[in-house]
């Protein structure tokens, strides 16, 4: 048996929305409008104005379609995003499946390590990766020495695909793992009783039931790669859309509307991708009622399976963690130039950053925690409104929030300055110069991650559990608090961790908004170091600090959730 596809069941029973839900929807809409729509609108409207007169026009979009470079960029962006999803899936599927489906020693470690690639600090991560995989990186220098050949890991579009899939596959890993853990064991057992096993069981039962999680991750990878500008720029690939937008927006003396036109195209493409992934799940029901079964039965591997399983996991981890290893080496290196390994090692870089890093760490923790917190509150609320109510236009909340993914950080940064710098506090300090502005920008930028995770989690919870609670007399609010949120805990955690950790290394919007060194987060400190030859080592050291910090927080939040679940008798 499978639960899919089920015709849209009589859901008429939750027809109308309560006043509370309407108020909530309006509040979220107002928040998104104020901190996303308004600032971005003040920047992007230029794309719709005619040169000279300032009147409304679509001629700029006509220019876009007619320009060979832009169409080539559009196609390249699609190609790279799609291929990155494929490769990210290749990395993520074995890790997720092996660690949730089997008794796997070190599953928690694998999950944590598999998460690390997402937190690649800006700039220094790029340098480290070049030193390892670049055209004269360690691997190619050794290959050249031994067999006289070189592999263009980081050349052209294929290089972008390689780096992006290594960087973003944790999106799939996290969401898919959460989904796999949430599958009702009874489903699997029923299938096994009916004679299904092995790959057929995976293909027909396990994977389809985990599909919301996979799609949540895959659509994030697609959109993120589509909108990412740092990686293509680092590899000097310019004929993709996001770099084109960035290059135009940041060139001075150029008041050209095309940068904003491209931003609009990026937003439309991202929202379409999100909409398509939502469409793919439409008319199907992924909810299962039973909870607390601890997810899928964990099989014990035969020795051969174990060798194969560990082999695959170690191979994948070695590949995706190579950049972090390079970063670690770089942070201890004196000089590392055109050689497989650094000339010598030193601790001096850590000594240099020791004094100032505590301030950066404190700021990063405050900003990222607040941003992650805002994100999961909004994420749960939006997911609930979209999936559990019939409010008119509720999907727009989802799409508006997802659109944030497509907005280049620098556009958001400029928008915040434009919208909030004129607003002053009583003593004359501009609103935009307060550190809370950075938190809001981070929260808006990372909201899509938390939202996808929360939506996926909610999709797996059967409505009947909430109905039971309501039948027993619980109010809607109480039901959400006592039933929905605890059952979503895994997804919420996944969302928080993704938002938190990516916010901790965000730079492009932060760079526009940081007003003073005392308010600066780690990523900014890194940027400041990475502008000079002597700053490379200290920058790497700061990067290692950032990675460790985020990893530590990730593990901590896992522990906290597990403990609280155990306390509630929900653990396994």
């Amino acid at each position, binding site marked *: 048996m499978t639960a899919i596809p089920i015709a849209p069941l009589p859901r008429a029973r939750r027809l109308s929305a309560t006043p509370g839900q309407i108020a909530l929807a309006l509040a979220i809409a107002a928040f998104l409008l104020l901190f996303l729509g308004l600032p971005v609108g003040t920047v992007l409207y230029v794309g719709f104005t005619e040169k000279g007169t300032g009147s409304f026009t679509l001629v700029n979009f006509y220019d876009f379609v007619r320009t060979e470079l832009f169409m080539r960029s559009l196609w390249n962006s699609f190609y790279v995003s799609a291929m990155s999803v494929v490769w990210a899936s290749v990395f993520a599927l074995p890790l997720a499946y092996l660690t949730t489906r089997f008794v796997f020693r070190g599953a928690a470690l694998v999950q944590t390590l598999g998460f690390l690639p997402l937190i690649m600090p800006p700039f220094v991560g790029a340098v480290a990766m070049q030193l390892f995989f670049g055209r004269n990186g360690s691997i190619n220098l050794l290959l050249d020495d031994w067999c006289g050949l070189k592999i263009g890991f980081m050349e052209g579009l294929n290089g972008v695909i390689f780096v992006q899939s290594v960087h973003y596959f944790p999106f799939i890993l996290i969401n898919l793992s959460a989904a796999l853990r949430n599958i009702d064991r009874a489903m699997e057992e029923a299938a096994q009783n009916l004679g299904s096993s092995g790959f057929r069981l995976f293909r027909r039962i396990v994977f389809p039931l985990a599909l919301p999680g996979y799609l949540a991750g895959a659509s994030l990878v697609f959109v993120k790669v589509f909108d990412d500008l740092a990686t293509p720029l680092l590899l*000097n690939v310019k004929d993709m859309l996001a770099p084109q937008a960035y290059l135009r927006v940041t060139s001075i*003396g150029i008041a050209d509307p095309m940068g904003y036109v491209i931003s609009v195209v990026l937003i439309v493409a991202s929202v379409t991708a999100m909409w398509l992934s939502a469409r793919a799940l439409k008319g199907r029901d992924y909810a299962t009622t039973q909870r607390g079964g601890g997810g899928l039965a964990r099989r014990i591997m035969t020795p051969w399976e174990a060798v194969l399983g560990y082999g695959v996991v170690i191979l994948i981890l070695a590949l995706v963690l190579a950049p972090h290893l390079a970063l670690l080496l770089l942070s201890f290196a004196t000089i590392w130039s055109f050689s497989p390994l650094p000339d010598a090692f030193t601790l001096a870089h850590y000594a240099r950053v020791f004094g100032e890093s505590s301030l950066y760490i404190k700021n990063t923790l405050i900003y990222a925690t607040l941003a992650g917190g805002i994100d999961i509150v909004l994420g749960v609320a939006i997911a609930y409104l979209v999936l559990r109510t019939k409010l008119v236009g509720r999907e727009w909340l989802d799409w508006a929030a997802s659109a944030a993914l497509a907005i280049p950080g620098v556009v958001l940064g*400029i928008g915040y300055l434009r919208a909030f710098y004129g607003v002053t506090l009583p003593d004359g300090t501009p609103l935009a110069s307060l550190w809370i502005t950075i938190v809001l920008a981070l929260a808006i930028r990372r909201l899509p991650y938390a939202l996808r995770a929360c939506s996926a989690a909610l999709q797996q919870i059967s409505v009947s559990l909430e109905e039971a609670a309501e039948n027993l007399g619980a109010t809607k609010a109480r039901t959400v608090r006592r039933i929905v949120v605890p059952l979503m805990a895994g997804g919420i955690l996944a969302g928080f961790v993704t938002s938190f950790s990516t916010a901790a290394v965000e730079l492009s919007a932060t760079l*526009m908004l940081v007003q003073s060194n*005392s308010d600066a987060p780690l990523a900014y400190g890194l940027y400041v170091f*990475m502008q000079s*030859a002597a700053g490379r080592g200290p920058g790497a050291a700061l990067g290692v600090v950032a990675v460790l910090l985020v990893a530590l927080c990730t593990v901590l939040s896992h522990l906290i959730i597990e403990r609280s679940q155990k306390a509630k008798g929900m653990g396994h």
Partner: protein
Amino acid sequence: MTAYRLALAFGLALTTSIAHAQAPAGKVTVVTSFSKDVTDPFKKAFEKAVPGVTLEVQNRNTNAGVKYLEETKANNQVDLFWASAPDAFEVLKGKKLLAAYKPKATGIPDKIGSYPINDPAGFYSGFAASGYGIMWNDRYAKAKKLPEPKDWQDLAGPAFYDHVSIASPARSGTTHLTVETILQGEGWEKGWRTLKAMAGNFNAITDRSFGVPEAVNSGQVGVGIVIDFFAFSAQASGFPVKFVYPTVTTVVPANVGIVTNAPNKAAAEAFVEFLLSLAGQEVLLEPGIRRLPVNPAVYAKAGADYPNPFTDPRFQKMIGFDVDKSEARTGVVDTLFDQLISFQLDALKGVTKVLHEVDAALAKKPNPQAKALADEVRALIAAMPVSEAQGSSPELRGAFTGAKEKGARQAEIESQWASFARDSYAKAKAKADEALKAAR
């Protein structure tokens, strides 16, 4: 709580500035593109020299810094702008974002090379000089058997194919000056010919200035076109890199300017004076900074191998740089570079590769027909869609500066230039293949 702290700081700043009417005190905020290695020593020395003032450094790249000042001018909180590219200061001056100030410091000549050190209108002052040139990684050069480059033309030679890197002039103020220097030194037609011949050997065009020295330092590319202090400070940090000033180059001052409506004008002026004082100039000699002071007296304290633009004959030969000319065509030059070179790099490299092969074949066995074809190929590559006069014309200028009048849209012009380049390079490729066949 930070907000509270800020408010407190403001309150303090206010009361103290009332107390000592003119004495500089409180917080002075500077937006700069300089790295921590440059700003930290200056901050330390300045705060020691002028007690009671704290220097607040906001690090932004030059373009972002200009945008930032523009977006926040209604409620400006920044006292100073401090960066390399004189162009950025011209842009700020044009937007009335700088306040005029005449420094009192003495001992600084009017010109370095043939470039005026200070803005003639007094809106910004030069505090350090920099020249542009070629930097290369010694280990890389040895491994790939690259000859030592001496001049721009050398980089166009076959030995350097796929080994050279540059930042895009549209994003890097310093590279823009390099390109403009070549164009002014060799003339529009010949200058573009040199640039495109070099560009055929480019491995990468990065989007920020520091991307180039970073790639050379780590040995990812062999040779980079950079501003001198990137190479000097890399050498000081121990990287195996070398640097040379080509014959057609110029020294240009890095500048500091006071922002219009600076909240702490007294302290801002104190900072400018400090930069130009002997104590401030000496900070430039530190290994992590290594820029050329504008006060000739300071060179007495520098090592013998430290380049001195006031005595070194190489610098006296350097060309004069016309800022007004540069300013008038900034957008046009940057966009031409991007449309003809950056975004067509693969095509350009494809022709250049064949051309190098033709030259090699011709060197072995002369062939007049192939030679003639190769010359045609070079002419096709060098062809420009606009002349020098058109480049500075008000129409084109209007298209690139977002002029308020109706006129050609930037996207239209870019599209024309791009197809011009695509057609020329395609024709050149066909001819080059023909030449190669003839030469073999």
